[in-house]
């Protein structure tokens, strides 16, 4: 009975709120998806944080730091949205450390030059926006509202990245080479951010029925590619896919086969920086333990004084 009413609500495009009844599987799906999203924001601070101290101008430094700070803020909203489903931030972080919760594989690739700050903003945030714009209409209220707020900031991030790429692409020969190299390294991992092809995506069915997801992985990926090809051409960079060409009949770009062995290998923990990213997060968390303990002990003392 509950389940039927729940589905009617969803079908009528009404949001599900934290106190509403929801199927256990819906709750679980959301916790998995939102926490994965939150962890991605947090782990995603590392590859860009890698360049903050080396940013080449005062302006570049401030913009990059502000951007990474936004990501920490997004992580906060998303952890909070996830907590409305009855799980604590501590538990979520523990799941991340235990390897039970995942984060976007894109952050397991290293950022090797300043142009990578361009590529990450332009492509990685660009891909994230396509996904997040769609998620603004997701059926769970707190997630949907979080996405609206996040999307506003992400479009600034994408422009910031594109600006770095554009600037380097018209710069010295060395800068242009760095820009092309960054595009070469980040292109395929970026389009793999949309996840496996629909035919290999076991959870898509329920997620679509519950309107958690509004578009499939393949549709979102196609959207992103359609948008990005022209942007690359405009600044004179070449997308590293010989099969990429406009298909007038489909009204979409055709593109080459993704390396799914690499995709699954990185998802399963065997990418260039998987161990490093998780170790960094654990180390910061462990080193902060005494600080969190001190803050708790102090707050407790203050409570005693107040009573």
């Amino acid at each position, binding site marked *: 009975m509950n389940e039927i009413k729940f589905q009617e609500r969803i079908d009528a495009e009404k949001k599900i709120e934290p106190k509403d009844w929801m199927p256990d599987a819906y709750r679980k799906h959301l916790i998995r998806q939102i926490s994965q999203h939150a962890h991605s924001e947090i782990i995603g*601070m590392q590859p860009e*944080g890698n360049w903050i101290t080396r940013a080449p101008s005062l302006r570049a430094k401030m913009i990059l*730091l502000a951007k990474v700070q936004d990501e920490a803020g997004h992580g906060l909203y998303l952890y909070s949205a996830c907590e409305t489903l009855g799980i604590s931030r501590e538990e979520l972080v523990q799941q991340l450390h235990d390897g039970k919760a995942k984060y976007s594989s894109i952050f397991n690739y290293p950022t090797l030059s300043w142009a990578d700050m361009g590529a990450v903003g332009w492509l990685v945030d660009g891909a994230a926006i396509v996904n997040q714009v769609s998620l603004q209409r997701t059926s769970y209220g707190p997630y949907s509202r979080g996405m609206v707020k996040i999307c506003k900031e992400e479009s600034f991030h994408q422009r910031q990245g594109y600006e770095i790429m554009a600037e380097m692409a018209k710069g010295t020969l060395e800068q242009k080479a760095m820009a092309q190299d960054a595009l070469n390294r980040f292109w395929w991992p970026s389009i793999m951010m949309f996840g496996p092809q629909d035919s290999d995506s076991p959870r898509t069915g329920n997620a679509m029925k519950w309107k958690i997801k509004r578009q499939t992985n393949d549709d979102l990926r196609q959207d992103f590619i359609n948008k990005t090809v022209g942007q690359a051409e405009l600044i004179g960079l070449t997308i590293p896919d010989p099969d990429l060409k406009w298909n007038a009949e489909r009204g979409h770009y055709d593109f080459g086969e993704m390396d799914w062995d690499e995709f699954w290998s990185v998802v399963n923990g065997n990418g260039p920086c998987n161990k490093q990213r998780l170790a960094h997060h654990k180390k910061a968390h462990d*080193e902060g333990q005494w600080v*969190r303990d*001190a803050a708790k002990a102090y707050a407790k003392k203050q409570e005693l004084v107040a009573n």
Partner: protein
Amino acid sequence: MMSSLFTYTLRIADSSLILGQRMSEWCSKGPTLEEDIAMSNISLDMFGQANGFYQYAAQLDGLKSADELAFRRNEREFFNHQLVEQENGNFGNTIVRNFLHDTFNFLFYTQLANSKDETLSALAHKSLKEVKYHLRHSSNWLVRLGDGTKESNAKTQVALNELWMYTDEIFEMDTLDTELFNKGIAVDNSALKSDWDAMINNTLAKAKLIRPEDEYMATGGKKGLHTEYLGFILSEMQYLQRAYPNAKW
């Protein structure tokens, strides 16, 4: 020949930049997510302040841009306080370093806001708003850490003992300071000491920390003499500008 006002402005900018750089090293390493955000925020404020003072210095100089001042000078040409170049260490080291410096900055900008130089006065007003928040942040944490657990008290006391030697030079007055002070432009740093002492003593008492004795006290920042840390900070920060001198970013 560099003008006195140019050098004076550069000194302020350098301390802001180097502390901003240190604070930005915390990004993704904070003890909590909220604190990570707060430290990035402080870093951003420091870079903003540095940028303001460098822009003014560039305008006075007429030869170098703000970025050239930040990214193309060597260790011996940097005039920041040695205190701000000290390593982040653990969170307690950072809080103590910032607390000692924020207290100074609060008093310094309060006075500089009265400068007869309109630009310095305006920059001081703007910085003061931010520094008040920085001081509240570092003071609150100092009390939490000092009066938290035994471990946090011990760690924070060690940090205080180690950093104390860098608290003397911030009050120094050289001939350039005196010259500009006499013109109503600069702050009399030495006159800030008694207020600084009172504020420090007050917060240390709340934090149950013991004020260290003055023993060896470092000096030299104003003359471009630094600890060994500054060279590494600059080589990291200036890497791209130095490696690709003809590139625009």
